[in-house]
């Protein structure tokens, strides 16, 4: 059984380790991997020739992860979700995974709120790109770099 003293000591050790790892990760932040040809093709296919606006789309991702197998990701647009003004689709694209298209989410007028949360895989340090398709043909884009210590296994 774990007594109080052992528990406290282990806690302190874990906290110190976390601090060390935090300091280390800042010191050697890796450069993002280059964009794959598949990403460029998938990005063009999603944009369909529209010039995207780099605003209004929130892409929530951790700055760095230990393990690329489970990376929490959220996409959100502040939209009234009415017939006149709504988000119809949200896309997640990876710039350096073996497959560029991670997910496409289709919303409806019953969505109420343009926000989706999931968990993704990242093979290596890279940029993740999110695209929102809005009513009236507007397209929003957001990019976030994620530092990956251990890549998602086998992706």
């Amino acid at each position, binding site marked *: 059984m774990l007594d109080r003293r052992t528990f406290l000591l282990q806690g302190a050790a874990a906290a110190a380790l976390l601090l060390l790892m935090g300091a280390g990760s800042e010191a050697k932040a890796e450069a993002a991997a280059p964009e794959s040809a598949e990403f460029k093709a998938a990005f063009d296919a999603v944009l369909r020739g529209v010039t995207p606006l780099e605003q209004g789309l929130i892409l929530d991702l951790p700055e760095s992860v230990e393990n690329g197998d489970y990376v929490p990701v959220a996409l959100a647009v502040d939209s009234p979700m009415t017939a006149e003004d709504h988000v119809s689709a949200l896309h997640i694209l990876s710039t350096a*995974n073996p497959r560029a298209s991670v997910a496409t989410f289709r919303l409806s007028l*019953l969505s109420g709120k343009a926000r989706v949360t999931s968990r993704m895989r990242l093979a290596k340090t890279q940029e993740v790109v999110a695209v929102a398709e809005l009513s009236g043909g507007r397209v929003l884009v957001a990019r976030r770099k994620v530092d990956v210590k251990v890549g998602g296994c086998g992706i």
Partner: protein
Amino acid sequence: MSMKKPPRIKIPASVNTGEIIEVKTLATHIMETGNRKDASGHVIPRNIIHTFRATFEGQEVFSATLGSGIAANPYIAFFMRVPGPGTLTLTWLDDEGTTTVEKVPLQVA
């Protein structure tokens, strides 16, 4: 491969008509990418949940097309505006042709 365990679905216990609620779903699935090899060097075929759909009384609420970049045991959370009492139907489809359907009656206050 079918799901070893039924999906987990979380919605508020009681909802009001017109309320916007979050629907949280977690399926149990390996999400085999198709890029891995087994011990003898053969590619393990892709088996992922490629489609997820949510409908309310036959009306489409939300759908997702997933790739191998979605993590194992896919977690998807989305929002819906409750139009009134009724049943939310959630469907997961995988590469092996397995269809998993869950029906969630909404307790409208």
